[in-house]
């Protein structure tokens, strides 16, 4: 059940230009949160911005959690100004986390850009339940934007790097790297990143007979199923099921459920 909690900022670090990690003390949230879920963070006391900002839990500790984020606009700018010791209101945990199943033969995480933010916690959970570290494809536009490589390695994950400009790892798209990793039936692929990257990644995975879970993003007002703002189109034909809410029906979806054809990539950030 979600709570609204005033969380103390424990640590707050800039990892790379414009990329931050903040640790927040919030036992009520941390004790219930699962990898893949998110919180809605109140970045301003006033009305600019007016709404909370959705942020995945990066890692979940006993009474705290971390969030990895990148500067986008006013909300993340304000977030980045919080100092250790200050309080920040978080609503969560929200949404459905990643299902964790031990009877699969292989787990591959595919992260694009800041989409990686949801995966350290997933890797931890997979290691705990399945006893093997997932493989990780870390892709980004350029070297500076590759986050958490070391973290995954420390967990024992095999990490494959890819950048669009070749500044680190392969010069390739995440989906191309995945293809070369030869996913197969029994493999589950977890993807988070830009919509177009998730579409390509899921296409590769599904064509290879693997499962694919995607963690979607959308503009959110409530984060909690109420405003109907965060929908994406599903493959359901019926009027009542066509629109699925990223916040509470997701953010994690079976990639086969998403109607990639209907999605208008032109509107993506």
């Amino acid at each position, binding site marked *: 059940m979600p709570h*609204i909690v005033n969380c103390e900022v424990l640590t707050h670090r800039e990892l790379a230009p414009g990329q931050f990690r903040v640790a927040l003390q919030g036992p009520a949230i941390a004790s219930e949160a699962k990898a893949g879920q998110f919180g809605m963070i109140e970045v301003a006391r006033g*009305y600019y911005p007016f709404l909370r900002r959705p942020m995945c839990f990066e890692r979940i500790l006993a009474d705290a959690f971390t969030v990895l984020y990148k500067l986008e606009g006013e909300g993340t700018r304000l977030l980045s100004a919080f100092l250790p010791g200050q309080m920040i209101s978080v609503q969560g945990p929200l949404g459905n986390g990643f299902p964790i199943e031990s009877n699969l033969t292989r787990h591959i995480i595919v992260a694009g850009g800041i989409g990686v933010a949801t995966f350290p916690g997933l890797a931890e959970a997979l290691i705990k339940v399945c006893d093997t570290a997932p493989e990780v494809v870390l892709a980004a536009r350029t070297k500076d934007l590759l986050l958490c490589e070391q973290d995954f390695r420390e967990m024992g994950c095999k990490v494959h790097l890819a950048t669009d400009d070749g500044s680190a790892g392969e010069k390739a798209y995440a989906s191309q790297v995945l293809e070369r990793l030869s996913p197969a039936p029994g493999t589950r692929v977890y993807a988070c990143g830009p919509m177009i990257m998730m579409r390509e990644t899921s296409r590769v995975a599904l064509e290879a007979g693997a499962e694919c879970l995607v963690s979607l993003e959308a503009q959110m*007002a409530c984060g909690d199923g*109420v405003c109907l*703002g965060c929908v994406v189109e599903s493959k359901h034909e019926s009027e*009542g099921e066509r629109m699925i809410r990223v916040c509470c029906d997701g953010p994690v979806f079976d990639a086969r459920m998403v109607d990639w054809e209907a999605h208008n990539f032109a509107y993506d950030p």
Partner: protein
Amino acid sequence: MPGWLTGKPTISPMTPDLSINLGGLAMKNPVMVASGTFGYGQEYDRYFDISKLGAVCTKSLSLNVRAGNKPPRLVETPAGLLNAIGLQNVGIDAYLREKAPYLRKKGVTIVANIYGHAPDEYVELARRLEAEGAADAIEANLSCPNVHNAKLATGPSMVSQVPEQVAEYTTSIRSATKLPLFIKLTPNVVNICEPALAAQEGGANGVALINTLLGMAIDTETRRPKLANIVGGLSGPAIRPVAVKMVWDAARVLKIPIIGMGGICIAADAIEFLLAGASSVAVGSMSFRQPDASLRVVEGVEAYLRQHGIPTVSDLVGAIRV
């Protein structure tokens, strides 16, 4: 003693009376939540006891389930929110089957907001809601900005922009139900008194002011509208001054009560609407940020009445000093 020297009045020991009768609808306090910003109630019942509210207003219900507009449907603007949901809702059947029983069990006072394409659809919706005991009052949404094709809609695109249509719709719905009937109006008019008076003449028991203001935002990098529907409705604190003005205008000509809304976030905002002449208020977009914002408004209005030694909340209605 000059005003600036008088201290704060001592807190009165009396318990103020928050209850109101809103055009026939008995409410334990004047605070409801605005249609479309509180789902069907259940969602936010996880955060606080929603039966403590004066009433819960449902998302607009239509005869058939609606998928709504294509995404993106939301964009934030300074102190505001533009939405083009397009009336996605579960439809009246699912409402009656799944949503109303929950609200009834919780003892919630229900204002069912309805939307149709023509008077007869509103009539059928109102009849079924009354017949099944699934509403304590009806709010007819004659002001949704998001259900027409924006490319065409440069003329009047909402029923409540045309007073004659308001009268016609209201009269039809009136004839179909004995439940208190409220008509929800758009602020996109020259003079809010005209549709409001038309609603009154048609037999409405109250008007709800205001729905969202028509608005639009463009992404300068992609050059695309930020909403797939191109235009949307603007809500939130940004529009509060516009809403208060419309309530004040309407209150001076109407005999029926007003439900005031538009940017209400805290108790002081709600009191502004009451002073302007609203008998009841609704918290809208602020619930997205703070699910229990409406309950805090109830508590804050009560505290205000105590502090000022005002015995009943109705004493505030229209009590602006001009």
